[in-house]
Structures are given as structure tokens and as C-alpha cells.
């Protein structure tokens, strides 16, 4: 293949990866932004979303489109319920203390991951894409389903923006983020807002997991890479800044796609990981973040 088609392929793959990454990172950013909780188990919610998508899709064999829609609705609901339980039973009891919650979410990471291993097994399983359609370009064919991923991700991102900026729930969320105690004094049920935020964060990761599973197989260890990449994105984008998160996801997702196609995926990860550590050290508020109060 010539250089140009190669670059085009890298860009297209990069955009698909970036969309899924933006969704995953959005959840992490939301949870950190409002609750100040670094959720190390976030990648496991993504994995759980993907594995549940497989489970839901296998309920209706032979009807991939219906199975997929069922997964798209069912997985996030189940994952959201798991997240609410984790918030009520664990995080709230720790009073959201930063270091204790990190240790606790590491515990949750292993508990979720190993429970999936016990119940689902060590195999990787694919879900059939809901649409079977290939775009034929002059140089290569491209899976039409990937465009569905891009469209669905953008829809969720726009939805998240709308909810946070234009609705009453969004105002309550932002008020809680801005000043927890004052919000409580104004009668906002901060506990319930926290549970909801944690569930929403987990659900966006689960949606990302459902969307990816026709491209990448569901496996119990698939949560680690998206977790680390989401960390990178959230840190570079500025902790808690949703706009920064989305911009950073696209820059990093596409950049990583290009380095991965032209050099090696491993090298792309090394560069990204070292860069983020340096960003965190020298620009603690991220490249797009505001100075925290």
C-alpha cells in the first residue's frame, strides 16, 4: 500500500479508537470531577460492559441487530447497578477519602475482574456486528460498523454535554462539583448525586465496552489498557474538565493510531505513558484544565 492510503487507514482507525476512548475517559473524568475519586476499577466497568454485551447477545442467537440493541440497553443498566452498589457499600463508607478510595477501587478491580474470570472463563468471545456492511474505498474495504461506533459515541458525548449544561440534573451535578457543602445546605441530596455520578461514569464505560465488542473480543483482562489510556486522557485534558477530556481523547487516540500503524503499538503506549507522567508533574492542571481553587 502507498503512503496515502496507509495514512488514511491509520486516521480512520485512530478516529474509531478515539471515540471509544473519549467515552471511557468521559466517565472517569466525570467521577473525578464531581466526586474527586480516582476510580482504578473504571476499566473493569468497560470490560463488564463488553462481557455482558456478549451475554445479552447470546440470549437471541441468529438476530445480531436485536441482540446488540438488547446489549446496548441491558449492559449499562447492569453495570450502573454494580456501580451504585460499590458506591453505597464501599466508597461512601470511606467518606471518599482520596487515598483510601484508590486502594478500595484497586480491590474492586480485582474483585470484578476475577469474578468475571470465574463466571465467564478465560476465553475471548466476539459479538456479531449488528449491521453487515462494508464501505469499499479504492484501496481497501472498511467495516461500516465502525462508522456506527463513531456516530453512537458522538451521540453519547453530545448527550452528556446536554445533560450537564442544559438540564436541572446538570446544574445539581455542577453545584455539587463546585462546592459540596454549600450544595448540601441548599438541599441537594449530595449522597444520591454521588451515587448517580458514579453510576453514570460506569455506564459510559459500559457503553464503550458494548460498542467495541463487535470489533474487539470480550475478555476478562481487556479493562487494563482502556484504564491506563483513560488516565492519560483525563490527566492531559485537565482533571475534571469534560471538554479537555474529549479534546485530549481525540488528540491521543488519533496520535496513538498513527504511531501504532507506522511504528509499533507498544512504542505508542510507551511514549503516551511517559508523556502523561511528565504532564502531571509539570502541568498539574493538565494542558486544558483550569487552575483548581
Amino acid at each position, binding site marked *: 500500500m502507498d503512503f496515502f492510503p496507509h495514512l488514511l487507514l491509520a486516521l480512520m482507525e485512530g478516529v474509531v479508537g478515539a471515540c471509544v476512548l473519549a467515552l471511557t475517559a468521559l466517565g472517569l473524568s466525570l467521577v473525578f470531577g464531581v466526586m474527586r475519586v480516582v476510580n482504578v476499577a473504571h476499566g473493569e466497568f468497560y470490560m463488564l460492559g463488553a462481557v455482558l454485551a456478549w451475554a445479552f447477545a447470546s440470549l437471541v442467537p441468529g438476530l445480531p441487530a436485536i441482540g446488540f440493541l438488547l446489549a446496548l440497553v441491558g449492559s449499562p443498566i447492569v453495570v450502573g447497578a454494580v456501580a451504585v452498589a460499590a458506591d453505597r457499600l464501599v466508597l461512601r463508607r470511606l467518606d471518599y477519602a482520596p487515598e483510601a478510595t484508590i486502594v478500595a477501587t484497586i480491590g474492586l478491580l480485582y474483585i470484578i475482574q476475577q469474578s468475571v474470570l470465574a463466571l465467564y472463563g478465560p476465553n475471548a468471545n466476539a459479538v456479531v456486528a449488528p449491521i453487515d456492511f462494508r464501505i469499499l474505498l479504492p484501496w481497501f474495504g472498511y467495516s461500516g460498523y465502525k462508522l456506527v461506533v463513531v456516530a453512537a459515541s458522538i451521540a453519547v458525548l453530545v448527550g452528556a454535554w446536554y445533560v450537564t449544561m442544559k438540564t436541572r440534573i446538570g446544574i445539581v451535578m455542577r453545584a455539587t462539583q463546585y462546592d459540596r457543602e454549600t450544595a448540601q445546605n441548599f438541599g441537594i441530596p449530595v449522597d444520591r448525586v454521588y451515587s448517580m455520578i458514579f453510576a453514570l461514569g460506569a455506564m459510559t464505560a459500559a457503553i464503550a465496552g458494548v460498542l467495541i465488542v463487535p470489533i474487539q473480543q470480550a475478555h476478562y483482562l481487556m479493562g487494563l489498557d482502556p484504564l491506563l489510556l483513560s488516565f492519560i486522557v483525563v490527566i492531559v485534558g485537565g482533571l475534571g474538565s469534560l471538554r479537555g477530556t474529549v479534546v485530549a481523547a481525540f488528540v491521543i487516540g488519533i496520535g496513538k493510531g498513527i504511531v501504532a500503524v507506522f511504528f509499533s503499538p507498544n512504542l505508542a503506549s510507551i511514549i503516551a505513558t511517559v508523556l502523561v*507522567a511528565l504532564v502531571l508533574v509539570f502541568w498539574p492542571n493538565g494542558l486544558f484544565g483550569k487552575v483548581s481553587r
Partner: protein
Amino acid sequence: MSGPVRHREDRRGIALQAGAILILLLLQFVLPDYHHTNVARILVLATFAAGYNLLLGYTGLLSLGHAMFFAAGLYGAGLSAQHLGLPMPAAFLAGVLAGLTFSILVGLVALRTTGVAFMIVTLMLAQACFLIILYFNDFTRGDEGFVLSAEMRRGTIFGFGYDLSDPNVRYGLALLLFAVASTGCYRLVRSPVGRVLVAIRENEARTAMLGYRTFLYKLFALGLSGTISASAGAAYGLLFSYVGATFASIQYSILPLLWVLLGGAGTILGPLLGALLMFYIVEFASEQTSSYMLVVGAALLLLVMFFPKGILGTLRDRYWRWLP
């Protein structure tokens, strides 16, 4: 605290430390072969945990990337034995030096952050190290790792022959390493420098206000912690003859955290107790099920929720105020 009380507390602490090492020394004559090797491994891992404890328990810095220091020692020793043909003692020193240099470099960068940011920076740097080890697959053999040959692990030092494949030699050296590391930590935390580290743990701003250059103290603590962890890594590779990328993975950053939390952060014998208990719990669980890491997750969660001071930390709070 007044002089005589301090002195008496110290005597009890020293007696406990000496007693623990004596028991470990005698234990090797009664343990069956299988547990003999296990305890030798546990002693090396407990040294790793002791290094970690210096940072978490006494300086109050929670690192999520200590696998990189363990791996610095492991690969510093393993690669120099494998590719440069260094004899075992020199390879061990190479591992320790690699760990020292590396931990100072990491400290200069990572200690510019605090709290949650420090945890994430160490996690990220450790992950970068893991990926770098995989990237230089030709040299490190990546995930698969490499085994040090039996001839390499024999030699003479000061006229005495040694053979690291002899279980008794391994046990003796592992115990020596642990005894030096934990007694060194004990001496350090009872010294004025150790007091400053504890002061930083309790209130860094106040310590800085009193005129201590807290950055330098933290750098010292991280450097020493990393070097002890690296010496454990070097010993682990040389004594048990296997060097592989697994030891640089996130799991090996989480395990020392778990061992220290279980035994009791900020206690001298906590790391040993935690490593010993967790080793056998994980061993037992792995015989029952393939998802044995579940116990690691459950243990972390239960510890942080209901038992944050660990075993020895709780005993110290309730009964033995003098426990080091």
C-alpha cells in the same frame, strides 16, 4: 518522651527484632523442603515490602509503581549476569546500583507531585517500564523471561565456594538480606532522620515550616525505599534464577501495598507478617480456583474498610505501645 522510657521501649523493640530473626534462623532446620523454599522466597518478598513500608508507613507516600524498582534490581542483576557474565556478587551489586540510580531519578520527577497525582505518576512510570521491558524483547526475552544457568550461579568469593542452587545457601542469603534491610529500617526510624520522615507523614507543611527541607528527606526516603526494593529484586532473580517481565507488571506494585497494609503500615515486622500470610493465602486460593486473585482484591477492600492499621498496627494501638 522521657529518656528511660524511651530506652526501655528500645530494648523491647530490639529484643523482638532479634527474636524474630533468631526464629527465622532456627526455622530452616525444621521446615519441610517445600516450605523451606517458600519461606526463602517470602523473606526476599518481605524485603521488598520493607522497602515499600519505609515510603508508605513512615513517610506517608503511597506509590503504585514499586514494581519498577523491584524490576530495576531484577533486570540490573539478571541482564548483567546473562549478557556481561558478571559473577553473582557483582551482579547483585549491579542490581542494587541500578535501583539506586533509577529511584533517585524517579524521585526527582515524581516527588514534584503529591497525593493522588504522586500515585498516578508512579503507576504510569511503572507501566512505561513494563512496556519498555517488553519492547526490548531481544534483550530481555519479554514476558517469557530468561533463566540463569546453574554454572552462572556457582563461583567463589574470598576463597569460599558458593552455589546459589543449594537451598540452604538460598535460605541463608535471603534471611541475611531481610535481616539487614529490616534492622536497617528499624535503626533509621529510631534516628533523627526517621523522626523527620514520620513528621512529614503526619504533617508535611508543618515540617517544612519548622525549617526541614522536606523534598530532600522525601527524596532520601524514596531513594532508600527503591534501593531496598531493587536489592530484593536482584536477590529474587539471582537466588531463584528467573528473570521475567511479570515482576514489572502492575500486580507487583499492588502486592507490596497489600502485604504492608495487612501486616501493618509503619511497623517493622508488619511487612514480613503480611507477606507471609498473603503468600500462603494466595497459594491456598490458587489450588482451589483459577480466579485466585479474587482474594487479593477482597483483602485490599476489607483492609481499607475495616482494618486500616493492619495486624501489628492494631496490636500496637490496643496493647503494645512500644511495638516498633
